[in-house]
C-alpha cells in the first residue's frame, strides 16, 4: 500500500521517552551553535564561504540518532547534503572538525582544506563525501544499496537532498533504480523541502502538490511530514527506516524544514525571522511539559557557544595545507607502480 499524508502532532505528547527528547535537544543545540559559529567565522574572515543546516536540526538530528553507524555494507550508508551537520553531530562527529574545514586547515579530516564547510566524509561511518553538485548523490545511492542488500544484513542506504534538486534527472534515476522489479533496494530517499532553491520559490517551478507523490507511480512507499517538529520527524523517520530495514524496499520521505539563515553566506547568512524555528518551538514544548527548564536549556546554549568559540581560536592556529599537496591522493598506489602523478608534465605556475 502506498500512502502520502502530513502528520501533525504539535503540542500533544509523541510518546517518545523524555531521555530521548533531552538527548535530541542537546544535539539540536550543538548543531545550531556550530552553524552560528561557522557563520561568524566566515563573516570574520576565518573562512571563504558558509553553507549549512540551521533550520534542519529537527530532521537531521533524529536521522543521526536512528542510523546504524559503522563501516561496510552491514551498516547504513549515508549520502548527505551540505545541510546535514545535525546528522553527523548526532552520530558523534567532533564539531571542531567542522571549524577546521571552514578554516581550510590541513587538519580538516573531511577534505584536507580542499572543500567548503559542511562537506563531510567519514569512511568509518559510511558517510560518503558530500559534494557540491546538487542531486548527484541520488544517482550513486543505488550502488551502496545494492551492496547493503547483497550483504544480507539489515544495513540500508539513506540519501538526502533538497526540494529544488528534485528537478535534476538524478532524483528520478533513484526512483527508477531503487524500484527495479528485478532487484528492489533498501533505500530511503529524503527530500528536505524548505520551499526554496537559492532565490527561487518552489511554488513557481514545481507543479507537484507533494514531491513524495513522485514515488507512487513506482509503487514506492512515501510520506510527507512536518520536520520542524523533531518528534514528528523522529517518528516519521523511524517508520520509514524500519520499513526499509525490514522490507528491503525503497521509501520516499518528504520533510518540510526551514532555512533559518538563508541559502548561504552569498545571500548574507542572516537570521530569517519569518521561518519557523524548530529549536525554539521544541524548547517551548520541553518547558511546557516540564522535561527541561528554560534555564537549563539556556545554560547549555551558553556552554556550547563558549566551547566552540575556544575551539575556533585553537583552529586559527592550525596550519594550512602546502601547495605541493595538490598532487596527494590523485591515485592510491598499486604496489611497484610509479605514482602516475610523478609522470605529469609540471608546467610552471
Amino acid at each position: 500500500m502506498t500512502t502520502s499524508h502530513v502528520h501533525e502532532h504539535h503540542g500533544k505528547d509523541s510518546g517518545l521517552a523524555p531521555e530521548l527528547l533531552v538527548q535530541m535537544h542537546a544535539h539540536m543545540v550543538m548543531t545550531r551553535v556550530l552553524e552560528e559559529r561557522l557563520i561568524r567565522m566566515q563573516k570574520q574572515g576565518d573562512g571563504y564561504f558558509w553553507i549549512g543546516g540551521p533550520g534542519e536540526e529537527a530532521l537531521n538530528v533524529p536521522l543521526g540518532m536512528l542510523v546504524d553507524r559503522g563501516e561496510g555494507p552491514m551498516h547504513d550508508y549515508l549520502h548527505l547534503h551540505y545541510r546535514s551537520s545535525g546528522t553527523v553531530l548526532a552520530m558523534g562527529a567532533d564539531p571542531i572538525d567542522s571549524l577546521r574545514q571552514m578554516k581550510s586547515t590541513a587538519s580538516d579530516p573531511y577534505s584536507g582544506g580542499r572543500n567548503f564547510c559542511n562537506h563531510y566524509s567519514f569512511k568509518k561511518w559510511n558517510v560518503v563525501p558530500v559534494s557540491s553538485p546538487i542531486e548527484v548523490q541520488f544517482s550513486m545511492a543505488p550502488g551502496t544499496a545494492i551492496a547493503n542488500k547483497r550483504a544480507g544484513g539489515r544495513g540500508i542506504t539513506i540519501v538526502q537532498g533538497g526540494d529544488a534538486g528534485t528537478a535534476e534527472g538524478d532524483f528520478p534515476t533513484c526512483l527508477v533504480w531503487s524500484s527495479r522489479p528485478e532487484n528492489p533496494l533498501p533505500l530511503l530517499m529524503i527530500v528536505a523541502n524548505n520551499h526554496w532553491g537559492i532565490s527561487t520559490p518552489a511554488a513557481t517551478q514545481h507543479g507537484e502538490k507533494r514531491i513524495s507523490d513522485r514515488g507512487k507511480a513506482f509503487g514506492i512507499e512515501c510520506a510527507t511530514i512536518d520536520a520542524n517538529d523533531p518528534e514528528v520527524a523522529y517518528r516519521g523517520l523511524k517508520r520509514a527506516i524500519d520499513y526499509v530495514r525490514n522490507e528491503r524496499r525503497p521509501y520516499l520521505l518528504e520533510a518540510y524544514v526551514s532555512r533559518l539563515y538563508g541559502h548561504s553566506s552569498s545571500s548574507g547568512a542572516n537570521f530569517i525571522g519569518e521561518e519557523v524555528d524548530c529549536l525554539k518551538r521544541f524548547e517551548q514544548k520541553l518547558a511546557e511539559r516540564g522535561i527541561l527548564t528554560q534555564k537549563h536549556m539556556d545554560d547549555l546554549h551558553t556552554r556550547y557557544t563558549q566551547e566552540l568559540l575556544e575551539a575556533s581560536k585553537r583552529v586559527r592556529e592550525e596550519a594550512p595545507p602546502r601547495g605541493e599537496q595538490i598532487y596527494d591522493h590523485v591515485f592510491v598506489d598499486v604496489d611497484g607502480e610509479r605514482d602516475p602523478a610523478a609522470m605529469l608534465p609540471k608546467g610552471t605556475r
Partner: protein
Amino acid sequence: MSTMVQAIRMALHVGEERLGVTDIFGEDVGPPLGGVFTQTVGLKTTWNSPLDERGIVGAAIGLALAGQKPVCEIQFCDYAFNTIDLLKLAGAMLWSSNGQWNLPMVLMTPVGSGIHGSIYHSHSFDATATRLPGWKIVMPSNPRDAYGLMLSAIKDPNPVMFLAPKALLRQKALPGEEVPGAPTDERQLAKMIDAPLGDRSKWRPDWPAVEDLFIPIGQARTVRAGRDVTVVCYGRMVQVCTKAADELATEGIEVEVIDLRSLWPYDWAALKESIGRTHRVIFVNEETEVTNFGEHLIRRTVEELFYELHAPPRLLAGAHVPGIGLADNLEQASVPQRDGIVKAMREIAQHAP
C-alpha cells in the same frame, strides 16, 4: 567605469531591445535575484528555471529551433558537465540536418578560479568548449569586450558560448575599456542599473543610451605590444600576463600580450604575425594542462611556424588534478600565478637556441 557584470547586463538589455532576444533564463536568473552575480537583474525577458541544467540547455535548443533568440545561463560552468551531450547535439543540429536548422542561441556561464570557489566554483571550460564543433566560443577580459562580444554573440545565427571570467565580473573598467555610451561616473551608473538591496519588486532600472558595439567573433586584441616574446592568453589571465609583462619591461624585456577573446574561431592570423616577429611564444590559461586548448595552439604553431621559433613554445596552465582546493596555497599551486609567468617569460626571452 562600469564593471563586467554591468556591461553584460547592458548588452543583454540591448539584446532585448534591438536584437530580438526573447528569453534570458536559468537558475535564479529572473526576479527576485537576477543572477548570482546580478548579471541579469532588471531585464525584461528573464525567468527562473527549475534546478535542471539539462532542461536549461534543452529548452534553449528548443526555443532556438522555434526561431526564438534565447540566452540561457548555466549558473557555474562547473555544473554544465551533465549537459555535454546536449551541447554536442546543439553544435551538430545544422550539420546533421544538412543545413536545415541553425540555432540562434547563446549560452553564458561564469568560469575560472580566483574567488576561493573551491572544487565546484573554480572550473575552467575552455578545453571542453573548444571540443564542441558547431559552437563559437568567446571569453572577454574586460567590460568593453564583454559588452561587444555579447552583442556579437546575440547577433550570430549560430550557437555561441559566452564564458565569463567570474573573478573579473566586479572589476571596474580601466580607461579604454568602457562600454560606449554608458555614464563614466560609476555612482551614477550604479544608481541607474544596479538593483537596491532588499525588496526590488518596485524598482525599475533606468538604462543608459549605450551604443552598438559588435566585436567580431574571431578577432584577437593586442593588449600590449612587444618585440621579444608573444604571450597568448584570455579571460582572467590577460591582466595577470599584462602585469607580468610590465614587470619584465623594467628589465628591458618587451613582451607582447595578445588577448584571444574568441577561442573558436580564433585569430590565427594575429598569432602568426606576432610569433613570426618575436619568434618566442607562451600560451597561458587556467584550464587543466592535459588535452588543453593551449596545446592545440602549440600544435598549430609547430605545424606552421616551426622554423620561426627561437625557443620551444611554452604552456602555462592548470595542474592536472581532480579539482582546485579551497585553501589559498592549494588554489595558487593549481593555476598560473604572476611570479611563475614572469619567470617563464624571462626564461624564454633569454633562451639561447
